[in-house]
């Protein structure tokens, strides 16, 4: 008898073949956990710092965080491979259907999960429904004393209290590259730009690019040696657009 779960998996497979437009491959075996991506993301995307107390309550606004887990006990203790975790830009995102304000929507053009800040009313349903726990909420208007705001990126909205936010795959960079390609009358090429995290990553553990074309680096990495590649919580049918590689390591 076909169970409901079986049905879902077959649907997922069907949809997965369609794929998204943008994707990322993260090689956990060479990620050193250095936090350069976290800092680069914060600088690019005008992310506020929340201070010691609020970060202690878990309100830090990292759009990308590096997870690590412990295995075993001293002296046989081991840290699992560092795992950069951010919005997986799901093809079938659990955050989207629960938003009453259509602030969390799927874009047709970029095939990403958008967060429309001026629609967001702060119900936080999306964050509760996100299995990856990658959405961050502005619990306050965090203070950035002068002249720190000089550094704001003019391409990225500065968010206020009560608004949900998350990794956007640096959509401002996607748009800028698109505009340029359009102005020059050509198609956007893979590798023409990359996200802030991938650009900074000292070990090149993060690769970003188009997954709707087969000749791109990111597509090749996703489909090469598939036994190592893994998409997190794929079994939930979320169709994540980030593939994690683990080399020969743990």
């Amino acid at each position: 008898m076909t169970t409901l779960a079986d049905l879902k998996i077959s649907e997922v497979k069907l949809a997965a073949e369609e794929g998204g437009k943008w994707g990322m491959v993260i090689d956990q075996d060479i990620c050193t956990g250095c936090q350069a991506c976290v800092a680069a993301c914060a600088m690019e995307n005008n992310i506020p710092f929340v201070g010691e107390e609020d970060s202690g309550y878990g309100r830090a606004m990292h759009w990308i965080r590096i997870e690590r887990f412990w295995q075993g006990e001293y002296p046989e203790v081991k840290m699992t491979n560092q795992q950069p975790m951010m919005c997986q830009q799901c093809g079938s995102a659990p955050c989207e259907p629960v938003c009453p304000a259509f602030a969390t929507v799927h874009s047709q053009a970029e095939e990403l999960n958008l967060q429309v800040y001026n629609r967001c009313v702060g119900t936080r349903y999306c964050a509760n429904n996100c299995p990856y726990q990658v959405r961050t909420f502005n619990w306050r208007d965090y203070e950035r004393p002068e002249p720190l705001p000089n550094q704001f990126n003019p391409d990225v909205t500065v968010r206020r209290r009560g608004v949900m936010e998350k990794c956007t795959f640096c959509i401002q960079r996607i748009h800028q590259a698109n505009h340029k390609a359009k102005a020059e009358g050509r198609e956007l090429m893979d590798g023409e730009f990359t996200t802030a995290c991938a650009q900074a990553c000292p070990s090149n553990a993060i690769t970003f690019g188009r997954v709707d074309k087969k000749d791109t680096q990111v597509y090749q990495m996703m489909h090469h040696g598939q036994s190592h590649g893994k998409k997190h919580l794929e079994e939930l049918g979320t169709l994540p657009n980030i593939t994690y590689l683990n080399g020969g390591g743990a």
Partner: protein
Amino acid sequence: MSEQVSRRDFLKLAGLGAATTAVLTGCGPASRYVVREPYQQMPEYNLVGQSTYYATTCRECAAGCGLVVRTYQGRAIKVEGNPNHPLNLGKTCARGQATLHGLYNPDRVTDPIMKNARGGFAGTNINWDDAVQAVADALKNNQPNEIAFLIGTASDHVFDLLTDLAKTTGVNAPIRFGAMNMLESRATLSKAAENLFGQAGMPWFDVANAQTVFSFGANFLETWLSPLSYTRGFANFRKATTTKLRGQMVQFEARMSATGAKADEWVSLRPGTEALVALAIGRLVAEKKGIAVPRIFSGVEPLEVAAQAGVKLEALEHLAERFASTNSVAIPGGPALGQSNGLAVAEAVLALNALVNNFGKEGGVYLSALAPNQSEYHRPASAQEMQAFVERMKSGGIKVLFVHGVNPVFETPNSLGFKEALSNVGQVISFAVFPDETALEADYVLPDHHGLEGWGYQRVGTGVSLPVLSGAQPVVSPYYNTRSTVDVFIAAAKLAGGKFANALPYADEVEFLQNKISALRGEAGGSFSAIDDETFMATFQQFGGWWKNTNALLAPDSASVLNQSIKTQVKDAEFAGEGEFFFVPFVSPTLGEAGANKPWLQELPDPTTTVMWTTWIEINPETAHHLHVENDEVVKVISEAGEIEVPVYIYPAIRPDTVAIPFGQGHTAYGRYAENRGVNPFDLLGKHFNEAGDLAFAGMKVRIEKTGKTQPVSRNESRMGVYGEDLGEEH
């Protein structure tokens, strides 16, 4: 602005999209300073809606990575790596990314100050003419040998200027120092090279092409020597290709560092036994290879060493097999060198490389290339040399001290007595960008520009096979009433007249730099050439430096390595103090020595513990159980040199007989984000040195007392592990 591109032409170019991605030089050859102007009169290179990119050099540490800074209408928006720069190939670390939080920090020194008294910042804002006069008087009215300069390691052009000044006027040659360099034990590495190869220098390890890496405490994926270069090497080492297998890494240390966390095998050693273990492995490797045990390894008995180090003999044998069978390299570093027998550790570990004969070979050990305008290897002062300098200040031998680019009051242990010694120095003049602890003790604070506002260059000391001189130029105009320290010295020398004026015959800093840099124009085999000095200088700024195109790594002379005996004490290290725990201070991988005033660096989770915004002490779970302490409980840590109170983080990857505290916090000044936050583990360090003169910072024992207080430690990790059953256990 440049005569060669008119505004109209520029607009045309911009319209074609060509200018939007080009990296521009901050000046046409004729223009020297970037000027911030109102929107109505945008400078030619700044077009509304278009970003402008400038190449410069990162000053957050001494490595000398190239940056390209995106500016928008006169403001610096984002730092990226310079993709053409041979050292970092377009990459940046977290501290490089956060350099903008230094530039736009709300707590910078905004004007030159003449202080009312030391110990506070209250004083009179003076104008720059008076400030320059004060410097000129200080130079003129004191005996040359009573004038000293203490400068940091990330400002080679300042060093060169002051060296020139010292050569002809008799003032003391500038002393360079930094806590990071002290904790890297640079003097020890260099001395070990001298003892083994007959040549001092900074060893460089070609991790990328090795098959097995044995790291004895080296934190080369964090802050060590040239972290971006080593991280890139590590990534290439780890990736399997058609011609090579995935590299395997073994880390020997008492407390698992962020580097050790990446190791395939983590070997916990009793602190102080690293040299013995390296020698024992060497002996076993020789036996496995069936060769006579070389003299350098002959004095150890592996069975005894195993017992002393707290590892099994079988484990040593297995490690020896691993090391002998593949293309291996052994790296000494970190706390292993900061012990009383640190020099022996460095020599023993370097000697291991002789067994696999990898000196001067791919995947092996080299001596770093000298930079283009460098004739011999130069290293920063060791802690012992700093101690000698402190003694000189104490005895009244120094009447004027100029401090630039370093914060010695914070960056040296209290036991060295730097702060107290300052009271015997007649005049202290600080060029600090931020109101740091040393500026607090100064009579004048004459703020330099932030690194992104100023000119300069930095020699790349290690990490790349090419000789590289990295160039720095202003990417924005100075935000405050600051002035370049080089300009201040040039102007003051002129006022002081005589030999001082003759020593620095330049109109300003740019002319000085042009003078230094144009010497390279005649050299063949460079990354670019130019028809005249001005074009050379402009191109130098545009590319972010000049480098030679040929590999200049030196192959160490390894002929006699194996036949030597280690000249210093190999035996167990000595530990100062009575406590029951070995004490390991380590550099915070995210803060470094000067990152604490940048709020986003404070909010970066530590890579191993995920702690933010404060200092913690790492204690093994079993030890915590015996001591009856819990997470977040504040304990008092007591050494022979002092005591501090710090909250507990129960850390699963540290020896039960060892505790560890990160260095980076514990400022008493340095702006709102740094001040009165966390503690400085240097307060626990006594005045003990290893044989090379480096501080024996990992040679202390401490005891721990409960205080009954708690302090919740902000950490990022509690959000994880929700669905992580198959990813390992959340701790």
